[in-house]
């Protein structure tokens, strides 16, 4: 389609058409679950089948008036925001350090810092369960915040690190030569420039914590159940339409996060484009 000059022969046209058809089917496959579940949350009936008997907001009403669901939303927010803040502090300082640190151990340290992303959730969860239980950190907000921070920080290190890589260190030197203290230079020169990177890192960190369920399954007491944890029980027991309302609320939050991230990326590209 784009490069029509390269689609000269009929066989090439057929191959391209096949690519388009298969891709369209895959896009449908990718989007179908999300699209199928949304209308059901607005159903007035209590069965999860089409056609819908009518439109209503009763399941959202059910969600909002249920202390169980609202408590889980509150928990997800508390744990998500706290672990985002903590992972931002730890991840940004580490990324700043890693950008300057020269050592043959650097790849090893980097691999260690990023390993929480790769290690299967169950292994981290079991390890934490054994480790945190004797010191009273299971069944507590603090334990979950610490665990989620460990999972979220690698994303902060990656995003902030990538931003720092494209950061012109001469700007920091210029600030220093003009008499700025290191802290001033960071606050007035470095920070505004890497802010989009920091924001992306924070979004990734929040999304990681907000979506995490395996560690919560092992470590949360009844008081700390998060939204995904509540959905897990709901799906296990029986899927009521209230879950579809919860799903739509979760998806909406994801869409907002994704849109913000995309806007940040565009802004960053524009800045780079104007600079170059």
């Amino acid at each position: 389609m784009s490069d029509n000059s390269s689609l000269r022969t009929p066989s090439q046209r057929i191959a391209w058409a096949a690519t388009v058809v298969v891709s369209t089917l895959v896009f449908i496959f990718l989007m179908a679950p999300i699209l199928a579940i949304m209308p059901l949350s607005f159903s007035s009936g209590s069965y999860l089948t089409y056609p819908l008997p009518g439109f209503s907001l009763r399941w959202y009403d059910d969600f909002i008036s249920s202390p169980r669901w609202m408590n889980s939303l509150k928990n997800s927010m508390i744990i998500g925001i706290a672990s985002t803040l903590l992972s931002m502090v730890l991840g940004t300082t580490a990324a700043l350090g890693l950008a300057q640190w020269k050592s043959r151990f650097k790849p090893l340290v980097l691999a260690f810092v990023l390993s929480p992303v790769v290690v299967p959730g169950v292994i981290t969860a079991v390890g934490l369960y054994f480790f945190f239980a004797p010191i009273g950190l299971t069944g507590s907000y603090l334990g979950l915040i610490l665990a989620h921070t460990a999972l979220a920080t690698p994303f902060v290190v990656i995003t902030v690190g990538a931003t720092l890589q494209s950061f012109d260190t001469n700007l920091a030197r210029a600030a220093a030569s003009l008499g700025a203290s290191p802290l001033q230079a960071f606050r007035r020169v470095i920070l505004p420039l890497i802010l989009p990177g920091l924001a992306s890192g924070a979004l990734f960190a929040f999304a990681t914590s907000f979506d995490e369920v395996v560690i919560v399954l092992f470590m949360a007491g009844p008081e700390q159940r998060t939204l995904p944890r509540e959905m897990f029980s709901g799906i296990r027991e029986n899927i009521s339409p209230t879950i579809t309302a919860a799903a739509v609320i979760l998806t909406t939050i994801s869409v907002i996060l994704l849109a913000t991230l995309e806007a940040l990326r565009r802004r960053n590209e524009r800045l780079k484009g104007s600079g170059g």
Partner: protein
Amino acid sequence: MTNALLTGANASTEVPLKRRLRRAERTRQAKALALVLPLLLFLLFTFAGPIAGMLWRSVEDWEVRQVLPQTVAALASWDGKDLPDEKAYAALASDILAARAAGTIAIAAKRLNYALNGFRTILTSTARNLKAVPEPGTAKETLGKINPAWRERATWTTIKDAGGPITGFYLLAALDLTRNADGAIVAAPPDQAIYRDIFLRTFLISLGVTVLCLILGFPVAYLLATLPPGKSNLLMIFVLLPFWTSLLVRTCAWIVLLQSKGVVNDSLLWLGFIDAPLRLIYNRFGVCVAMTHVLLPFMILPLYSSMKAISPAYMRAAASLGAPPLTAFLRIYLPQTLPGIGAGSLLVFILALGYYITPALVGGAADQMISYFIALYTTETANWGLASALGAVLLLATVLLALVYGKLVQGQQVTGGMKN
């Protein structure tokens, strides 16, 4: 003289400067390390420490050692060939009485029962029927009367093997192996030998999902890499939106779609393709569909970036040199996507190996992967040694694959840098 003085003066100003620069660099490096250190310490406490603890549990053997200390000590010098001597029987009788008073019999019984089915009954019945410390010299006879199992060598080798402080028992069990009474490593009895099948199942499901992701992801990545940026950015939303949607939401949605009265079955019935609802969920099919859906973006994104880096000039050059389109694709384009295929496939495979939530929610009993059993033994049956051993095997597989992945991605970055 003047020459020597000059060089001397030069040296005296130069060396301190060099040293000063080196010192400044050292301070800079120390400061950089100090910035990384808090995160390293944090991860030591919240990640590396817990995992090391889990690995330790897979070889730790404390129960029998703690509950039957005198017996373990008495058996230390036993050669295991014949029945142990009277001293060991007396030690056991004394240990059992002490453990009964302390209420710790069940701890040792549980551990010994893992190694020898029925040991729990042997130990509890002995604890119930042993009235008092046997007269000196009669312990062997007394215990043998209470339970004839004490006259069997296997009963005693089991205690000796479980005497700790470390054991290969759980790691062997995780690979369907065990030690026989002579200490040789042999295949575990068939009723306990289930883990190789589970590892094989985990491997096959992961492999199947990886292949499905590659087949579905390749055309999409190709399309996205070939379309002009405006269109491909728009279509990219279809990949990124599911990527960002909660795993639980997607799993829930697949149940809604695939259940017997779900959207897919209803549509097929309505269209007349089928007469009765198909069983599409709580089986292997449902697990593969849901996992492929979750992992597909992890395949598309690396493929897309490797295809994006391929210059269209190569294909034009191949065409101008007379290569038919298919030949040009197979010999010029495809080889250049291999690093992307490798990275995407490894990533999907690594992530699939550790899957727990999706199979637990959309799979049947025969579709549970290794993570499910690790979770089961941790929280339900509290067989922490076995849970840790299975975890150690899974961790080893993941780490090895991740190392390969690291090499692959690093190589790509190097060549990418050279191209620029």
